[in-house]
């Protein structure tokens, strides 16, 4: 099976530009996203990392037009293979994009599957959206998908209901459903957070194989830096509704530039860390009803300067593939700036 369309490794399959999304709540307007800019490449895994409430899930939902009623898209673009998805009608999204082009899997596999339908019914429903080849063929395809995600006894599995499966199996059934539509981009929102490490290791291997064998691009949303290092090629670091840094996974761990990225990398225990090596970030994540002015990280930043509370830092290119939004980072004028 080959992929829909062709997107090369160096080409962007998804480009999010200056995206701003607000939610109207009883307490006021929550500026969940305010100028999110990053891209996901073809045939690679892009990580979107950040802490609770930073807007990483909202970003994923915006791409697929799945935001709640109280959300307002204030500005920005979501360019998928050259087309702005924000211009598409609900019908166009449903008919041409969701599932077929871009699929999404969520954190809790238990609540993403319908408890009253068998695995076969749920996978073939997805298959029918894309190619309805009749009952027999659909079932064969369903078995093929289940085998692709390394689920044993695929034929027997078709008759099972979700409650008969373990968490790791359910998450793989979700992947099989999504693969049956043959999308070019998979958005995975904390897919292993509810899973044990041994099951997580199995799952990550399946994702890696999907990327390598089918050429599916993956946008991997997580708060877990260790998982990012395991699976991602590139990373976008989010803080309080903004991207603070876009960089390769190697750069993130070896030379992160934004003070938040640096703190984040040094707050996670690894093999040879002792407690005193771990850095803490003073304060806590701001509420986005009344976010800090200027750089949203400045109240917690140990390196803040005068204009950090005034002016919003823009993403600046600091390397061939490295952008950072911080006033303290000097940019060489010769390199790529206008």
């Amino acid at each position, binding site marked *: 099976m080959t992929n829909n369309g062709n997107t090369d490794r160096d080409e962007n399959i998804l480009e999010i530009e200056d995206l701003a999304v607000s939610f109207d709540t009883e307490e006021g307007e929550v500026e969940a996203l305010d100028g999110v800019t990053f891209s996901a490449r073809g045939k690679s895994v892009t990580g979107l990392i950040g*802490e*609770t409430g930073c807007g990483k899930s909202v970003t994923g939902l915006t791409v697929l037009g799945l935001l709640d009623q109280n959300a307002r898209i204030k500005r920005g673009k979501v360019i998928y293979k050259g087309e702005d998805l924000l211009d598409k009608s609900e019908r166009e999204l449903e008919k041409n994009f969701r599932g077929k082009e871009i699929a999404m899997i969520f954190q809790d596999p238990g609540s993403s599957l319908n408890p009253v339908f068998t695995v076969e019914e749920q996978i073939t429903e997805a298959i029918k959206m894309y190619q309805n080849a009749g009952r027999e063929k659909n079932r064969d395809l369903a078995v093929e998908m289940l085998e692709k995600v390394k689920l044993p006894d695929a034929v027997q599995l078709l008759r099972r209901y979700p409650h008969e499966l*373990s968490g*790791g*199996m359910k998450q793989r059934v979700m992947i099989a459903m999504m693969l049956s539509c043959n999308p070019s981009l998979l958005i995975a929102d904390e897919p292993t957070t509810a899973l*044990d*490490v*041994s*099951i*997580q*290791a*199995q799952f*990550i*291997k399946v994702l890696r194989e999907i990327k390598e064998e089918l050429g599916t691009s993956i946008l991997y949303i997580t*708060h*877990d*830096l*260790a*998982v990012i*290092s*395991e699976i991602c090629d590139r990373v976008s670091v989010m803080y309080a509704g903004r991207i603070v840094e876009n960089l390769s*996974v*190697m750069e*993130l*761990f070896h030379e992160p530039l934004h003070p938040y990225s640096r*703190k*984040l*990398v040094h*707050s*996670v*225990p*690894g*093999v040879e*860390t*002792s*407690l005193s090596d*771990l*850095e*803490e*970030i003073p304060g*806590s*994540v701001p509420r986005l009803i009344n976010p800090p002015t200027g750089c949203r990280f400045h109240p917690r930043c140990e390196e803040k300067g005068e204009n950090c509370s005034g002016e919003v830092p823009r993403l600046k290119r600091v390397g061939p593939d490295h952008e950072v939004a911080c006033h303290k980072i000097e940019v060489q004028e010769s390199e790529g700036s206008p």
Partner: protein
Amino acid sequence: MNAILELRNLKKFFDSPEGTVKAVDGVNLKVYQGETLGLVGESGCGKSTLVRAALRLIEPTKGEVLLRGEDVVKFDRKRLVEARGQMGLVFQDPHSSLNPRMTVAEILRRPIKIHDLCDSEEMTYNRIVELLETMGLSEEHMIRYPHELSGGQKQRVGVARALAVEPEILFLDEPTSALDVSVQTKILKLLRRTMDQLSLTYVFISHDINLIRTISDRIAVMYLGKIVEVGDTGEVFFNPLHPYTKGLFESVPLPDPEHRIEEVPLPGDVPSPVNPPPGCNFAPRCPKKIDRCEEEEPELGEHENGVQVACWVA
């Protein structure tokens, strides 16, 4: 070294429509004075049940819980309350373990009152302020309700409540797993400092193996209701003897992009604790199993490096 707490053949079974769930099935474990013992294992292995049975928040089915040599399981109500004054518990989810209708002061006043630790209202007040300050909070937080606090602050109140009774052992059941990493470090450092100040002993439960490795002196690995390996953290990580321990550690992603988990270290799923397999519980998933593993259950035995392991081939 002195064991402050010793679990002997501790069992906790639950009845379910499918049969008896052996959540904790014959655990032998010593906790030494002044150490941090890390307890790791995957979900459903019985870590939380073990702690609750040791505190008699649920009654153990069988076995002994020796607190400084005395069996807590045999204690009457009055002595049990006393014993619980020596063992504190911090829960995983700070959002649901604090009563939303009580202020921070009321939350902290309760254990002090129940254990009758302060003679006057003024002493109680000062004690509450002291507890808050130990956890990096202050007097002004007393009148706050839990919903007015951040996740990290709530968990610090949770720890302060556990410390209110002046325990000797603190059981920490995934205390930071509901928190963001940037907040986690602060709690961990506060816990370490408090431990030194108050000469505490910690039993730290976590599924985050990198975290346990960083903070524990010794580590105990649980699988399906049993301890499969226990020993010095450095030894166990450097040279895991039980095939489950080895597979578990190899499954853990590291924050290092040069490190890759190439093969799946632990294939298959954890079997149901309702009908655990005969012999060694891990045998069906074990790459090294021999015939004996499926017939006879291995007991914890000590190896040269002082690590105890329950395995026929280790």
